[in-house]
């Protein structure tokens, strides 16, 4: 480097860099700034040694501290699990009715069940468990297979018409397309309708009642209040799972639709299923 050159105008030493007669002044950074800068470099070296940092071909260096954000998440989840362990153990050892009777357990089970519901059940039953055409509303008091906590639990454990589970709840409504004439179907539908609403034609109701007793009462009952052992719906109430009105009733007689729910115990484990049962039972329709 050339000898020191001092700029005449400012009296400041230059760096020796020159472009077309323009020289760069050598104004040093403040001391504290420089030291902070050096400190950050030292820090960075220390950090690179202590923590995973340098990318290699297949993975990165591990760092002396062996830190990993994935392991941290895993340990946090393990901590949360450990914190819940007492409650989960008690839930595992209790029946659903015992859980509901214990305020601490039921509060925990309802919260956990609500979260499991959003992940596993909301796809069919909706986030508010209000269901939809063909998918039962779990808030109301109309239950196909029973609305006590224990019955809900059994339904969840084995599912409905789940061919994978030998103990699943199963029943089937036959098609009446070969057994009843279209006119007879109209009469039967008018009778069923008359149990809760005004039918379209009062003259159809009387013959319909006879046809109902002969063809339908075996499953749905003499009074059409259904049969929970068979999952046969109550036809005399205000709730219509497959659609309201005579046309919908006739459609169900011609080509019956059946709902299907998977068995959940094998997938979620008994504890989560119990929590789900307690949650569903708490929605307001539980018996």
């Amino acid at each position, binding site marked *: 480097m050339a000898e020191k050159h001092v700029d005449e105008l400012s009296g400041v030493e230059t760096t020796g860099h020159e472009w077309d007669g323009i020289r760069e002044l050598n104004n040093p950074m403040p001391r504290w700034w420089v030291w902070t800068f050096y400190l950050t470099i030292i820090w960075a070296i220390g950090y690179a040694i202590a923590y995973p940092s340098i990318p290699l071909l297949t993975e990165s260096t591990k760092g002396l501290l062996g830190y990993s954000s994935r392991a941290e998440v895993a340990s946090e989840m393990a901590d949360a699990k450990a914190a819940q362990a007492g409650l989960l153990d008690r839930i595992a050892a209790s029946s659903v009715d015992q859980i509901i009777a214990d305020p601490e357990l*039921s509060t925990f089970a309802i919260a956990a069940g609500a979260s499991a519901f959003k992940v596993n059940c909301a796809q069919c039953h909706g986030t508010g468990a209000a269901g939809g055409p063909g998918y039962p*509303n779990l808030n109301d008091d109309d239950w196909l297979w029973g609305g006590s906590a224990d019955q809900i639990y059994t339904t969840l454990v084995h599912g409905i018409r789940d061919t994978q589970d030998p103990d699943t709840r199963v029943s089937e409504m036959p098609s009446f397309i070969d057994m009843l004439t279209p006119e007879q179907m109209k009469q039967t539908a008018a009778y069923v309708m008359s149990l809760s609403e005004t039918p379209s034609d009062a003259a159809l109701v009387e013959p319909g009642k006879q046809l109902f007793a002969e063809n339908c009462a075996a499953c749905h009952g003499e009074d059409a209040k259904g049969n929970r052992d068979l999952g046969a719906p109550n036809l005399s109430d*205000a709730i219509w799972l497959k659609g309201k009105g005579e046309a919908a009733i006739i459609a169900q007689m011609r080509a019956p639709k059946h709902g299907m729910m998977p068995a959940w115990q094998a997938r979620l484990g008994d504890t989560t299923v119990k929590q789900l049962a307690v949650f569903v039972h708490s929605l307001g329709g539980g018996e």
Partner: protein
Amino acid sequence: MNLYTAPDLEPADVERHDAQPVNSAKVRKPLYEKRKKIFPKRANGRFRQFKWLVMLITLGIYYLTPWIRWDRGPHAPDQAVLIDLAGRRFYFFFIEIWPQEFFFVAGLLVMAGFGLFLVTSAVGRAWCGYTCPQTVWVDLFLVVERFIEGDRNARIKLDAAPWSFDKLWKRVSKHAVWLFIGIATGGAWIFYFADAPTLLVNVLTGNAAPVAYITIAILTATTYVFGGLMREQVCTYMCPWPRIQAAMLDENSLTVTYNDWRGEPRTKHAKKAVAAGAAVGDCVDCNACVVVCPMGIDIRDGQQLECITCALCIDACDGVMDKLGRERGLISYATLSDYEANMALAQDGAGVIDPKRVRDENGRFTEKLRHFNWHVIFRPRTLLYMGVWALVGIGLIVALLSRDRLDLNVLHDRNPQFVLESDGSVRNGYVVKLLNMIPEERVITLSMEGLPGGTMRIAGQAPGDGRSFAVPVTPDKVTTLKVFVTLGKDRLAEAAEGFRFLAEDTASHERDVYNAHFNAPGE
């Protein structure tokens, strides 16, 4: 042809200026200047006495308040002043504040703000000079410094002396005591946030939460650095208040004033000057006011940003005036308007001060001199501050006396909005929260008004439908209930009218009402 003509090297018509660039590199100073040490001398007098008293009271309040006990029964802590962050409660003697009542704290801050405006416009920077924590702790640190190192002259000598065992010992013990005060200050702070006796044991045995130790460490550092090392620099460079309060002061605000009209011309050789027939003021230029100043200024330069109006220069000067047998008050609290009137009296047309003009032939002050009149404190500006301050205060008291200790919050279920039951009736769900804001067990009657034919039931409680339930609520807590309201099929037309939830303490008749909606299918 050569068009170039040689320039006239010394043209006569070029004007030359006698000037220096203000910001030339040769005269430019560095932006940062090293702190010059200040060695304030101990002052004696009325204001010093008053400041000792203020220091005793403020430090006493700060260190002792967390230890005051206040019985609130078995369901609430017995510490008189407690900010319970974990439980989200603030206790102040007989007052308990829930988070939603935080406006009381906001109101107190508004009052503190207007109180500060009021005090500043009436008596100047009294806050800075007497009660600001920075001033109080610096005073405390100076007491320690004087006790160990001696008064001003001894300290200057010690500071200039080369390092020796004596100097080292004095410095180490001074800083050790300062750090101890810092730890005590940080330690006292944390007691406001937890039960003080329990926390003290935990802190000493190493069982307290890390946040307690971190807080002590931070406040120890700030107390030590601000009170011991930075002192007046905090006021002059860090604090925004000296700048803001300039807007609070006017010509009728009391400030510490050097009364030039009786002090000037100052002289150290009064006898000689009198003999020479020159005018002589009361100021003997002894610099007593300068040596006691903790801010390192000369009050005789007039009002200045650095002055915190601690009034120690008044004490120092009054002592000197007493010795000289002259009237006290060469430096005094005075308003700008009084000061200017007296200056006008003392000055001649050219602005030269002659103290004889303010004295009569017997050497006494003339009747024409203006003295501070208490009436000027009550002027539109201060009355307005007082009015707003009192208004907020009255508002807070009214709010405190009339506030609810029973609160009813209702959240209407939105998913699903309503549920159709098998008998055709419609059900709505509500989350009802009963806030029992006193530390006592109570039985609250939760009932519904309106919606004829409608019934309610509380999930998990007293099975069956009804329109009124007795609910036991936990002391000083929120009790959350899931409530279902059902309306029969034939009454759905009236659903749109809505209804009201009513929570009432049957014993005290305290009540709260919530106007609720009822959703039904719109056919």
